[in-house]
């Protein structure tokens, strides 16, 4: 049985971070009702020419495994209908700018009136409080505000934009916080308002470096280097734009690497005998490693490195990921079907549970309003006539 079977989520989230949170929970068995409107279609329902998609997406990762209903929240009857869904839900999730839900009449107080023990999740760029709470933002801005952007980059280069992984890490964090709030509700009978700030998630991912700075240290960008390990980084393999990542964790691993590279002479070379010595000669060390990796097929080199007890992996391209037997076996990559039946690869839920082998994506992207018979008809008990009247009034729209 899926672990979250029985949990119902009224999902008002938009963009990426919030929808990824509810997407994860839907894969774990929660019933997620995506509340949308033709007035403001979600990004995946529109063309995305920057990425070469000239029409709506046929499959959207973060919308999959969700149910869809239409509600026009600009109408008073629309918010009333939304509250009827909230009244039969355990969770209401949203990711508008702080204040928007209140203005719609769907703030925490209003949702609590609809369901006393509702758990409300709000995901925003800077949190629900504070002088910057009105800031709108995207993933790269979260990374910039939170310090993850400034800490990432080549030592002699600029800071780096953190892309969608930032949004989705916020979503995964939000799923953890939301589950914690549900556990508290189970223990105390009390709902709560969970407030997840994306920029604080970015900061939390460099919390050790922020602590160092608070103690008077000066953390800086170090590229692919590591404060202890050397060699450590990403090295060119044979072929164009082919790379492998490796990390030598201790002296015996260095000796193993030296032998693998056919450089027995380095095993006893005092210049590289200790971690501290190797760290003092990183440019020389990287040249030595590169001289070897450049002559190697990435896949064979990685197998040899792992066999020698050294952490290594190909810098995977997306086609390699989709074809990888390990990821397939783990259900990290799954096959889903397009509406016309064409199979395509998608990313599964990042865990395996011994008593719930069925978790993961079990349905594709819903059509706008696809599940209204179920939600409005069966769940809320509305008649055809009532629904038609709301459609005519552009409330179900």
């Amino acid at each position, binding site marked *: 049985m899926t672990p979250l079977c029985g949990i119902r989520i009224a999902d008002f989230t938009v963009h990426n971070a919030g929808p990824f949170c509810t997407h*994860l929970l839907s894969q*774990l068995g929660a019933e997620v009702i995506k509340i949308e409107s033709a007035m403001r279609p979600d990004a995946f329902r529109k063309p995305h*020419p*920057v990425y070469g998609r000239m029409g709506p997406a046929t499959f959207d*990762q973060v919308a999959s495994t969700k149910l869809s209903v239409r509600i026009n929240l600009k109408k008073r009857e629309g918010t009333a209908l939304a509250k009827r869904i909230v009244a039969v839900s355990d969770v209401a999730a949203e990711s508008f700018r702080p204040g928007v839900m209140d203005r719609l009449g769907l703030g925490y107080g209003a949702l609590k009136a609809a369901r006393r023990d509702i758990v409300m999740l709000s995901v925003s760029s*800077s949190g629900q409080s504070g002088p910057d709470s009105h800031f709108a933002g995207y993933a790269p*801005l979260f990374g*910039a505000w*939170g310090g993850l*952007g*400034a*800490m990432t980059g*080549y030592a002699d*280069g*600029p800071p*780096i*934009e953190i892309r*969608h992984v930032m949004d*989705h890490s916020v979503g995964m*964090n939000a799923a*953890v*916080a939301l*589950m*914690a709030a549900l*556990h*508290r509700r189970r223990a105390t009978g009390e709902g*709560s*308002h*969970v*407030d997840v*700030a994306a920029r*604080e998630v970015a*900061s939390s*991912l*460099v919390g*050790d470096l922020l602590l160092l700075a*608070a103690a008077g240290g000066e953390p800086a960008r170090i590229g*692919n280097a590591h*404060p202890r390990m050397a060699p450590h*980084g990403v*090295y*060119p393999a044979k072929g164009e734009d082919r790379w492998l*990542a490796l*990390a030598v*964790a201790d002296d015996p691993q260095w000796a193993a690497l030296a032998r693998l590279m056919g450089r027995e002479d380095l095993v006893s070379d005092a210049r590289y005998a200790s971690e501290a010595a190797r760290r003092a000669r990183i440019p020389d060390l990287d040249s030595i490693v590169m001289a070897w990796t450049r002559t190697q097929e990435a896949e064979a080199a990685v197998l040899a490195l792992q066999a020698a007890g050294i*952490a290594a*992996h*190909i810098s995977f391209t*997306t086609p390699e*990921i*989709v074809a990888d037997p390990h*990821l397939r*076996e783990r259900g*990290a990559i799954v096959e889903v079907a397009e509406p016309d039946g064409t199979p395509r*690869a*998608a990313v599964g839920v*990042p865990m*395996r549970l*011994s*008593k719930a082998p069925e978790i993961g994506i079990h349905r594709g992207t819903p059509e706008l309003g696809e599940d209204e018979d179920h939600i409005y008809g069966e769940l809320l008990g509305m008649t055809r006539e009532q629904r038609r009247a709301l459609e005519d009034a552009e409330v179900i729209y």
Partner: protein
Amino acid sequence: MPHEATEPLAGLKVVANASGVAAAYAARMLATMGANVVLVEPEGGCPLRREPPFLPGEQGADGMSSLFAYLAAGMTSAVVEPEAAAGREALATMLASADVYIDDTPVAARASLGTDETALAAAFPDLVHASVLPFGATGPKAGWKGEDVVVQHAGGEGFLLPNGLALEMFPDRPPLKIAGHFGEMQGGIATALAILSALWARPRCGGQYADVSSQDANLAIGAFAVQRLGDGSIEHRLERSFRYGGVIPCADGHVELLTLEQRQWDGLVELLGRPEWACNPALADGLERSRRGPQINRRIREWAAARKVDEIVDAGQKLGVPLARYKSPAEILADPQECHRGLFQPVPIEGTGEVGMLVSPFHFDGRPLSIRSGPPALAAAETDSV
């Protein structure tokens, strides 16, 4: 430090056998939300205690590992040598009263310690047993080793960074990992989610085993690359750069600029002072702007180079232009927003004193969380804290 009984996970008992960041980060997330976490360490201490950089200590000496202090704050320590019979017994005693066991022992070493999936399920049927490893506990790569740089590249995002300015400056350099322990921490976050999900199901089905892989977690948050592959485009760091905007160098630092919507572009034109080139009617079309991205960016960079970050951000925010300063750690520590939110809290750290530590990116009912104690000293003898 105040520690309220109403914290979301108050009463939850967790035992963490964590030698790596992923397992420790999962335990930290639970601890900051109120769980009682015991960190199981070998006699020499958890290896994370030895990871640099170290906090400044007394009289110029190295203090505690900054990474360990951050990860282990709020936990208690118990020294257990699971290879000895007494150690196995001590661990079993702890697990008998625990709700959750988090373990990152290599999978091949578990059976001889009696901590494999089958043995623990038989001995503790209500225990949620969470395994987190770089490549997970099952599958052809289950035995593989992986540090942060490795799991980031195995998960796909490694190949796709950097973008924009850094890539323009250094087109021939190796792709770049995200800073610190980003990849391993994603494994930890996924583990925390697996644990709380399994606990939710426990009244129905008892305890269970969760197998989490940091590679899978990195792939999950990088899922859009797989989605785009299905849409017919292979992502590459060169093509993925924003056509204009991105990281913009200013007179005193860097700003991130991202205008995805028309009204944001209109605001940017205002911010730039409506120069002739930006008012060109052709640029009213988003696709045309995309085609002329490099020229637009050259103009934006010329304009920004003579201005200070705060000046640009303050004026831009008023015009609805998404802009953010690339903040240094010191700037974040002093930021009025983070101070208002109570993001940092003074925590006692042995050898260094009280230091402001990030607690959690979550607020519950308008309040920040708190950390109940500083990072633990290594317990003196076996089972001291049990």
